[in-house]
């Protein structure tokens, strides 16, 4: 842990000056105490989460990573633009870091904002191997704050990642404790009538699909900065200060709906890129996404940061307070989410004509969730032509029409939609994409297999892109689960219908029954990972290698040594 100073001698001789920093990280076995349980896990510099890595835009960093485990490890710098061999994915970027070995990452920081890092080996990330990255920009930021905190979420489970994967393979509903019961049948009967309820159950039973299939892995304790709800991580403030909260969802599997009762939040950044400020009461953070929000508490009181899981099976909680030890009320979890037939509409071979009858049963049941305007004739998912901007959480163009997953703010106010995200300062000139690549997100819940275009990673050829092209990716979610798709190394320009103001992201959530488009300027040579960021979906096959062919001479990777042939596109 001794700082190593680079010699300043050369700097006297050379005119161009750059920043350089050297950092050390060790990968260690650690104890993780959630307040609910204590578990052996993996961390950095002796703790999980690891340290907050603070870099400066324009800095050249050297990060020495020492593997103190008895297995291979790796660190992926999530969302950072860097040479592919520094990206930290074993088998794609580099071979990995052997036990006892120190690997030195070297790259220059070309961006600013909130990011994170995590192991890309096995299930080390769900086992605790993650940390935050904060990059200070070179220039002025378009918003003001007096204080900042990283708020890093995870879904810490008492079981190890390997065991969770095995249990899901043995019994896909192993962890699902929100399944429909006899009691729910009778409460549905009283709400929707016997015939509607019976035909609804028969329709879902016929598909062998569960309306309760929202969260695969339940039974976790939500942590914020490593602290469980009872341990209550607390961020201090002086009333009147503006606080920047850097939310990072480092969960293995869990989406969180985040609110701070009593405080408005202004979203200023998503996935490290500044967005035009949006005031919201609540927002949903997908796995691997980051959102920076600014809050402005004026009163001498405590506020609860409440992060409810999307399926309502668990939560994380923290506090903002003027003094240590103060706390505010912790809200109750809302009712578990239930999928609707609209969420199934992406599945091939679904006959919506036959299902319309019993779908009305659903509609009545969930009318409080904003099911008005459900239209069975038009369930193809999102349609940019007729995109209605979500304004009160009652509808959201990034969810299937009539979806049971459409989020609503607990206080009835504004819930953030992807449609609200507009780039503050577009990174790229807007231009026509050179081609479109369709990626169908596919899977089979009963077998717990997950794939892209029906092919698991083990059987898949790489996706080949040409340096310099602009590719439009079309995600078609044919499953009933939400998938946070993460392309390494290059930005994902999410199509929200705002043309050059489309937001720049690294992780794009695709809701069931929807089609989402993103564009990528193929500006980084080499090979990259592209996958669903739900740990157990990625491990079950929803994963691809992307090869970027060509590129500038100086950075061009040797493609002639490739053993793989062919390609998906």
């Amino acid at each position, binding site marked *: 842990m001794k700082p190593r100073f680079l010699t300043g001698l050369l700097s006297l001789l050379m005119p161009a000056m750059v920043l350089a920093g050297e950092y050390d990280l060790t990968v260690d076995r650690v104890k993780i105490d959630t307040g609910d349980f204590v578990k052996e896990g993996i961390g950095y510099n002796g*703790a999980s989460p690891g340290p907050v890595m603070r870099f400066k835009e324009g800095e050249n960093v050297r990060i020495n990573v020492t593997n103190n485990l008895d297995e291979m490890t790796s660190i992926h710098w999530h969302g950072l633009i860097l040479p592919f061999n520094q990206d930290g994915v074993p088998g794609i970027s580099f071979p990995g870091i052997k036990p006892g070995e120190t690997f030195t990452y070297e790259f220059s920081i070309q961006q600013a904002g909130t990011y994170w890092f995590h192991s890309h080996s096995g299930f080390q990330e769900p086992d605790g191997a993650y940390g935050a990255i904060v990059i200070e920009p070179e220039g002025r930021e378009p918003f003001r704050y007096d204080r900042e905190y990283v708020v890093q979420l995870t879904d810490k489970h008492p079981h190890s990642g390997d065991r969770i994967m095995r249990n899901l393979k043995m019994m896909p509903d192993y962890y699902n404790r929100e399944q429909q019961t006899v009691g729910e049948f009778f409460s549905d009967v009283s709400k929707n009538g016997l015939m509607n309820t019976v035909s609804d159950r028969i329709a879902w039973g016929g598909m062998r699909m569960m309306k309760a299939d929202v969260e695969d892995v339940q039974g976790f304790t939500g942590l914020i900065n490593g602290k469980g709800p009872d341990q209550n991580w607390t961020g201090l403030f002086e009333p009147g200060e503006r606080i920047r909260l850097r939310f990072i969802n480092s969960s293995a599997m869990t989406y969180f709906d985040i609110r701070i009762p009593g405080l408005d939040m202004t979203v200023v950044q998503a996935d490290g890129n500044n967005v035009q400020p949006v005031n919201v009461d609540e927002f949903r953070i997908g796995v691997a996404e980051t959102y920076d929000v600014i809050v402005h508490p004026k009163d001498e009181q405590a506020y609860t940061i409440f992060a409810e899981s999307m399926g309502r099976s668990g939560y994380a909680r923290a506090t903002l307070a003027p003094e240590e030890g103060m706390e505010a009320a912790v809200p109750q979890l809302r009712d578990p989410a239930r999928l609707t037939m609209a969420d199934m509409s992406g599945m091939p071979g679904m006959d919506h004509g036959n299902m319309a009858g019993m779908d009305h049963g659903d509609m009545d049941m969930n009318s409080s969730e904003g099911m008005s305007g459900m239209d069975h004739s038009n369930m193809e998912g999102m349609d940019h032509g007729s995109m209605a901007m979500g304004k009160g959480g009652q509808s959201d163009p990034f969810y299937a029409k009539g979806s049971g997953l459409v989020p609503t703010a607990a206080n009835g106010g504004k819930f953030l939609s992807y449609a609200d995200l507009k780039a503050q300062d577009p990174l790229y000139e807007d231009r026509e994409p050179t081609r479109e690549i369709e990626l169908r997100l596919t899977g089979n819940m009963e077998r717990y297999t997950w794939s892209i275009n029906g092919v698991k990673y083990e059987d898949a050829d790489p996706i080949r892109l040409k340096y310099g092209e602009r590719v439009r990716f079309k995600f078609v979610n044919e499953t009933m689960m939400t998938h946070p798709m993460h392309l390494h190394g290059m930005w994902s320009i999410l199509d929200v219908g705002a043309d050059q103001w489309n937001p720049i992201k690294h992780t794009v959530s695709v809701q069931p029954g929807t089609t989402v488009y993103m564009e990528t300027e193929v500006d980084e040579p080499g090979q990259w990972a592209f996958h669903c960021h739900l740990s157990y979906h990625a491990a079950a096959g929803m994963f691809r290698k992307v090869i970027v062919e060509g590129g500038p001479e100086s950075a061009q990777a040797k493609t002639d040594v490739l053993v793989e042939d062919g390609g998906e596109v």
Partner: protein
Amino acid sequence: MSCIRSIVAVSFLASIGVSTAVTAQEMIPDTTARKQPLTTWGVQFEEFEYRYSDDDEELGVWNADAFYGTDDFKVRLLTTGEYEIEEQAYETLENQLVGQIPISKFFDAKAGVRFDTPEGPDRTYAVLGVAGLAPQWFEIDANLYVSKDGDTSAELDAEYELLFTNYWILAATLDASVAFSEDEEIGVGKGLVSTETGLRLSYDLIDRAFSPYVGVVHERKYGDSADLAEADGGGTEDWFAVIGARIAF
């Protein structure tokens, strides 16, 4: 913060160093475990129980399976047995070793061998079966058996789980076997041989790994098989109270 940061002004040589590293880098093939089929295993005791019959018969009974393999091919060991506690003898003891491959979205095909080694004559069968999830959540396991002597029989197992809550579960089971030829030596007549129906109310005590239950089981023999049992001095129908646990690990 425990990582140490030092920022010094150095020349752009540092950045040249970075790009040299890139040029030297080759695009490696992925030989990690991620690129290999995921191999997994599991052991489940659907039934592991003590049975007490209306004739004061006491049995120790299990019905379990263990698998190892990938999505495309699994090896599965199925074992089931009924141990007569007073007589210290196995009324039934079946072990199957099968290979299993997916044949549709929800069903697998199985093929292998079955060894029956209870008290009395042993039997060896070839097994061909399908197992999976039928519409409306019925777990189905249907098998066709051909013995070494050419006797054929079939067995259908079906199970349905009713969730009173997410922890209190009522499982209804039906096992029925049919013989297409007589095997008098082991008490099997042609036609419907026997059924076993059960109702078990369980509580998931430790995850889904340990779920104690109580229940009732009804066993009945039919037709020629019933006649053979009666001729042998046995009963053709039994009611059992059962207590046990579902176990998975």
